[in-house]
């Protein structure tokens, strides 16, 4: 379903309904029960990111809802508050940076704020700087990297002064579990990026998107080794490419003998995708059950 201006609100409302149970596991604490503040932040940030995706790219409702379902599940309890802030700021930056004038400036500020919330968001200024240097725009490049570094330094200073030092190491199996949840998005996003979509997606006009994805890939690789990288922020960029990936997959499945001699590839890829989606679906149903139990038996 491709939402238009009239049906956008319905899509966002359903996103709220999807994100609410998905945020339960991140907000649940064995000793304190469900922490409402964490639950609200995680739900709100996922819905906000979904709304940004809906506004900035002409995607179908399914893609928006997948972000609403998977983003809370990919948020760990320890980093939920700052991670939620980073998710909001990053998605806002991706939405605003492809516009001119004041919106672009707001996008740069948002990018800096995202770096303050989570240093992983540095993939955005690094990507922009990389592209600007490649095209000879040295002034823009210096602005991007300065804003990113300033945001990261501010966030680092606040973290050191008001809370524990920022995480530099995470449990590897936790990161791998998160990556397993997000693999369908990576797969569709990679395919969408490689498919060079047409002008249907507004994200395509962003010249630095390809370099962003490259920087995010490096960040994802570092996250897989257990460094304190927020893999959700790295994968987030590929959600903007999921619509074109889905369209490409539909075209692949649509032909029984696509490509002349290779049969059933579309069906096989669809099956792989369905298997990869199982951890996300199980996690979401787990959140629904947890919410149901908490509602019926009291918090």
């Amino acid at each position, binding site marked *: 379903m491709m939402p238009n201006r009239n049906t956008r609100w319905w899509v966002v409302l359903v996103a709220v309904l999807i994100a609410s149970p998905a945020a339960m596991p991140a907000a649940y604490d064995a000793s304190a029960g469900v922490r409402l503040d964490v639950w609200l932040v995680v739900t709100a940030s996922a819905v906000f990111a979904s709304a940004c995706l809906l506004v900035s790219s002409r995607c179908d409702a399914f893609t928006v809802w997948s972000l609403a379902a998977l983003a809370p599940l990919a948020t760990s309890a320890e980093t939920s508050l700052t991670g939620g802030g980073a998710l909001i700021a990053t998605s806002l930056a991706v939405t605003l940076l492809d516009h001119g004038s004041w919106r672009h400036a707001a996008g740069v500020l948002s990018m800096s704020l995202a770096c303050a919330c989570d240093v992983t968001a540095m993939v955005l200024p690094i990507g922009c700087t990389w592209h600007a240097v490649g095209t000879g725009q040295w002034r823009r490049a210096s602005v991007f990297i300065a804003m990113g570094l300033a945001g990261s330094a501010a966030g680092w200073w606040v973290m050191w002064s008001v809370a524990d030092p920022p995480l530099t190491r995470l449990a590897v199996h936790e990161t791998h579990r998160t990556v397993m949840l997000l693999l369908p998005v990576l797969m569709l996003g990679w395919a969408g990026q490689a*498919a060079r979509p047409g002008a249907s997606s507004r994200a395509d006009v962003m010249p630095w998107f390809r370099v962003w994805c490259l920087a995010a890939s490096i960040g994802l690789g570092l996250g897989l080794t257990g460094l304190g990288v927020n893999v959700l922020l790295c994968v987030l960029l590929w959600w903007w490419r999921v619509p074109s990936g889905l369209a490409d997959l539909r075209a692949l499945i649509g032909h029984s003998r*696509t490509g*002349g001699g290779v049969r059933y590839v579309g069906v096989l890829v669809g099956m792989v995708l369905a298997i990869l989606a199982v951890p996300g679906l199980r996690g979401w149903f787990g959140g629904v059950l947890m919410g149901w139990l908490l509602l019926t038996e009291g918090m």
Partner: protein
Amino acid sequence: MLTGWCYRLAAGPPSRVTLVPIETFFLVAAYALFWCLSQRLFGRAYAGALTLMFALGQNSYTALESTNDGFDTNETYMLVPMLAAVYAHLAVIPPVRRGLLRGLGIGCALLVKQSAAVLCGALIVHVLFEAVIHRRYRPAMVDLAMTVSGVFLAVMPVLVLLGARGWLSLHLADLRDLSGLHVGGFTLGVPPGYVLLPLLPAAWWVLVGGLSNPQGRFDAAPTLSVSWRSACVLVVAWFGTEAVTLATLIKPATHYYQLLVIPAVLTAGFGITRITRSLDVQQSAGMRVRRWVGVTTAVLLLIAAMPVIGAAVRHGRSFDRTEDERVFSAWLAAWPAYGTADALRKTVQTGRTTSSGQP
């Protein structure tokens, strides 16, 4: 003996850290040889990806090993001679040189571990199969004679050394008594999922390649000593034999799966070549199939890499050199190099006595 020589080459305190450069040397040599073999069989375009799959598989099965954390396994040292034998068999054209090199490779691999007998059998059966198919019996006999000569050349120095030291009868008795100690029928059942994960990308290429419908003939392979189809038959048969052998083992050690990786990845190479010959990349549909096969492979490689990355990080974070040296010294004291077979026999006998409940 090989490990002892390794320690002579890289002297240091008894620790697994001392083994790292030695094992790295053997593994890097195996990667290089595998790349050469893949490049001859499937071209440069896929040699890199196949070597990546090969390296991922080997390291996964050593990193997931629980008994000795994958260090000092014979399967790692066997890779180079086994690959040399396969390379000679498939890619060396002059028959005398081919037979001799193949024999040297098989001989060295058999010296490291008797598991190389599977490859030895597969190669000999393939030579005979080729002779029957093409009705060329005399060259095949020459080929086999040179192979036997190569095996003899590889084994002889070791036999002479053992005889000179007076250890030959002891080693031959061990060979008779301890060979096949862990073979005992189909008792382990289907291996757990994490053991099969490293082979997932290769399985994907085999699956898609198997379903493809290539155009044109495959027999023209001027850089190979056999036809492309015959090489494919050999690799698939080798993979099947290794898989059946693995299924008969009674000890669920992951390093045994290392021997499965070479034929599995080579089979994947045949799969991807079939796909390539099936596609018309000038058309958008062909490009689309290629894109999706590539993306799915990348995702499956990521999944396959996660266990080995996790194991590497866990080992790296928890590694304590002092503790490792202490444990390793205890191993060396309990398992002296000159009496390892005796220690193994005692361990096995103790285990049997304990399990039967008798003193």
